[in-house]
């Protein structure tokens, strides 16, 4: 869909499309997307920054190796799980130190984006 808008006396042309609740816009050489319901920038799903007690799947893919066991002690930044998507392996690390509280996936399982995979109980400090 082509969009034409006049902003402060300047004409802007853009391409836009609603797809699965998201609005996609291409304007002035840049593509961006936002939640069509809230009109805000699409919320970043799991995997991005921030300290969290849960290791989540940053993408749809397959769990190929689980490197920790429930009850094991982990350090911040320790590799806990290996996933594969699009023929590449991705090692997922935990953000915080603590003990592994639960593992909610199995080797060979196809998991969705944002699924909680490993929960860490923070060490008491």
């Amino acid at each position: 869909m082509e969009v034409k808008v006049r902003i402060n006396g300047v004409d802007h042309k853009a391409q836009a499309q609603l797809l699965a609740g998201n609005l996609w816009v291409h304007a002035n050489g840049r593509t961006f997307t936002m939640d069509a319901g809230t009109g805000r920038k699409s919320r970043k799903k799991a995997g991005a920054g921030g300290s969290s007690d849960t290791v989540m799947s940053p993408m749809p893919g397959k769990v190929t190796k689980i490197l920790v066991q429930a009850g094991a002690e982990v350090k911040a930044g320790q590799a806990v799980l290996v996933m594969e998507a699009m023929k590449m392996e991705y090692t997922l690390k935990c953000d915080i130190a603590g003990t592994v509280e639960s593992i909610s996936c199995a080797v060979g399982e196809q998991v969705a984006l944002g699924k909680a995979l490993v929960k860490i109980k923070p060490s008491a400090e």
Partner: protein
Amino acid sequence: MTKMPGKFTRIAIANRGEVAVRIIKACEELGIETVLLHSEADINSRAYRMATKTICIGPAATAESYLNIEANINGALAGGAQAIHPGFGFLSENADFAEAVSNAGLTFIGPSAEAIRSLGDKVHCKELAKKAGLPLVPGYQGENQQVANLITEAERIGYPVIVKAAAGGGGRGMKLIKSSAEAAELIESAQREAQSAFGSPKVFLEKYLDRAKHIEFQIFGDATGNVVHFFDRECSVQRRHQKIIEEATSPSLTEELRRRMGEAACAIATLGKYKGAGTVEFLLQDGEFYLLEVNTRLQVEHPVTEEVLGVDLVKMQILTAQGEYIHDPKMIRVPRGHSIECRIYAENPFLGGVPSTGLLGHVEWPEGPGRRYEYGFDSGDTITPYYDPMIAKVIVWDENRQRAIQKMIRVLKDSVVFGVHTNIPYLIEILSHKEFVMGTMTTRFIETYFADPIKEPELTEVEKKIAAAALAQARGTQHAGATASASASPWMTYWRGI
């Protein structure tokens, strides 16, 4: 000598995505029909719609479809093809496949199984190169694949060491080991990736050169076995050992180096009795070059060579397999201008490149002089998590490197992909980086300057207003099908049905 196969009337394609489309186009120009051997997951793709005939050879998992030798051969026979083009990746460098194709009475469009074994197997290739006196990177290429032994060898070579899949390419099954602490984990990971991507867990080790440029030569052996090179490409911009941006010719070679490396490339290819298109890869550091490997197939980045030389490597491959293509000794090829290719990956550059999958919305690759697009999917197709994330290649040509860079930035800004995130913003930042612009980048360029995800810029006031207007307009015209599923759209079904 095997008998000349004669002209093909139908060629089977054992591949998918943009390379399948590329092969179909070459076949169409030669008046040859095509049979696409595809997986269940690839029904929504351009190649599926373009091929003369399509045969499903198995489910989405590559081991059961694209890597299944028997399924591919049975499909080609059932489809009435006389030859199989393997594209790149999958079975393209698998000597057993090449052999099985010949045994089934079909022609493998590529080098002989023997040439693949001697050159394509990275371990054998190094032995051959050693005999020929070509410079090699120090490493371990032994048969003992036990992790403990590989660790011992890695210690002997001295870290950093790179572990690579013997049967592989494209960055899969390849890891950089910086210290003994991470050796076991990375070697095991490389073995798993190698098994998953190439059907063999065999790996080898190499000393990691820390400020090298990746330079490769396109070689071509004609139907008589005469090998020439079609000049060089530079592919130093790599992330996780996967190329992102490639160009022809390299901005780093002196004429003297170009001559010597070209001669070395032809020498190794001639030793391996090479027929068809192939690539000899080198690392160049401090004015010295080292043979890295030979890729016994068409390369993803072949278009940049085609653009600067005005050749069609895929047509040449087919003609060579028919016994027709012979180098003209009077033909002097001189590279003209500069060509750059960017690989468009379905990934989110603001989240460190995690794969992005889903239904493709509107897609636009704007035409213009010196622009070329190779893509495998249209609006309404689904990008699945089963395969390589490369969904398209953008190639530009211009009179010199600086103009080609400028053009590429403009072309990427003009391109539209909705529905999945792409690395386009990432590519634009790389193309604008001082070191890339100067042409001095090494294979460590990405890890040095782009180790962290690029920052997503906040929306400007103008962009917010555009988005608000777009949202209002979209809501008013929802019946036009913007949110309807692609398969439910009547015109799309109509065109798909042809």
